[in-house]
């Protein structure tokens, strides 16, 4: 379970919350979040809120991140226990050490505004549903891959790639139900995955913030599906045939690590968990390069190739 709270709740109080289901977790928020409309469950009971955020004591990361449609300065601090995320021009966010609480703490600049703060602003929702949520999930050993994903024959195929490497275009082509009845889009940009006793599972219920709430691809899919294959989308020269190129298990683990969202915000214990998890995933899930020309005409050939696997 993950609970989102607005402001410091050290005093403790009871409030009603909106209940969502994301990445296999019950998520309760003291403020309704329009981006999560597709994942809303029934109204939850009143929730008693009492969190004591730990003090920030060590800077883990300082740099820029793509948040809310622009590059922003972001800092990750370790607390005792937990994390603080500090993004320029926004509230600070505390994530508890068990990943079960995310608290938005209104900063002094926001407090100076005359109107009482009753809603989470756009940038703060982007942080909450971006790095804060990803960090809370990681603390519960659910890792968010920067990947598009499709479902084929009840199993998930993830496509990794930097922005502009064609992963969304390929997934959108394969997942267009009217054209490809056996395929279904599962993720446009972020795919949460975790290990269980049977292998690696994917959790398609996750807000794909680049898509509108009404167009979330996970609608109608099971909450949890086996992750069958991972491909790294790789650009080939025009008019060369599509091909699948195997890579070593070590390269596979490195690819999963490199394409995990927000890993640079982790502290050393979480980095270690993440390292082991990515290595373990390569025991169950083949990772390969999917090399094809990034042109529309090549996509049917890529589909054929994948269907033959």
């Amino acid at each position, binding site marked *: 379970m993950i609970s989102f709270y607005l402001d410091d709740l050290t005093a403790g109080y009871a409030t009603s919350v909106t209940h969502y289901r994301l990445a296999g977790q019950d998520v309760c928020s003291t403020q309704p979040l329009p981006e999560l409309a597709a994942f809303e469950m029934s109204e939850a009971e009143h929730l008693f809120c009492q969190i004591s955020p730990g003090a920030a004591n060590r800077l883990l*990361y300082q740099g820029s991140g793509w948040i809310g449609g622009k590059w922003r300065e972001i800092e990750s601090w370790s607390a005792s226990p937990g994390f603080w995320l500090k993004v320029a021009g926004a509230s600070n966010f505390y994530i508890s050490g068990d990943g079960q609480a995310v608290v938005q703490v209104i900063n002094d600049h926001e407090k100076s505004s005359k109107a009482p703060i009753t809603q989470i602003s756009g940038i703060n929702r982007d942080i909450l549903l971006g790095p804060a949520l990803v960090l809370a999930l990681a603390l519960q050993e659910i890792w968010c891959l920067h990947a598009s994903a499709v479902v084929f024959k009840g199993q998930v195929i993830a496509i990794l790639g930097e922005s502009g490497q064609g992963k969304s275009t390929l997934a959108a082509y394969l997942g267009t139900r009217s054209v490809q009845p056996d395929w279904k889009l599962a993720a446009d940009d972020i795919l949460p995955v975790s290990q269980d006793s049977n292998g690696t599972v994917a959790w398609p219920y996750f807000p794909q913030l680049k898509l509108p709430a009404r167009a979330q691809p996970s609608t109608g899919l099971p909450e949890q599906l086996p992750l069958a294959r991972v491909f790294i989308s790789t650009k080939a020269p025009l008019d060369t045939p599509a091909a699948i190129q195997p890579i*070593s*298990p*070590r*390269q*596979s*683990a*490195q690819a999963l*690590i*490199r394409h995990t969202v927000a*890993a*640079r915000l982790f502290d*050393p214990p979480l*980095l*270690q968990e993440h*390292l*082991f998890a*990515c*290595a373990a995933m*390569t025991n169950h899930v083949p990772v390969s390069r999917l090399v094809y020309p990034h042109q529309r005409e090549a996509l049917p050939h890529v589909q054929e190739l994948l269907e033959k696997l």
Partner: protein
Amino acid sequence: MTHLDSEGVIVSKKSHEITLDSQLQLSKTVLFTTVDQETVLLNSQTGKYFGLDEIGTTFWGLLSKNIPPRLAYEMMLTEYEVTPQELERDILDLVGQLEKHGLLEIIQG
């Protein structure tokens, strides 16, 4: 023979004169795991990941058991088809790269 596959920049110039008799220890900030006879290393301070191939993994595994580099070299010489000169050069090159990336510390040159 390449042993270290890095996402960062590999600097081949060594800051210390490293020999097989140097005393080495794994850095306190290094995290690692072995995957099918190869190793993924992480410098938790810089957040950079590196990969070691099979031969690099053998050397790293021996170092992690506190085996001195010269003894590791002698053990590897019996295991791999390589000339003594080649193996020494490769090991010293690898040690230099590991040290540059903060994965290994040279206690005494």
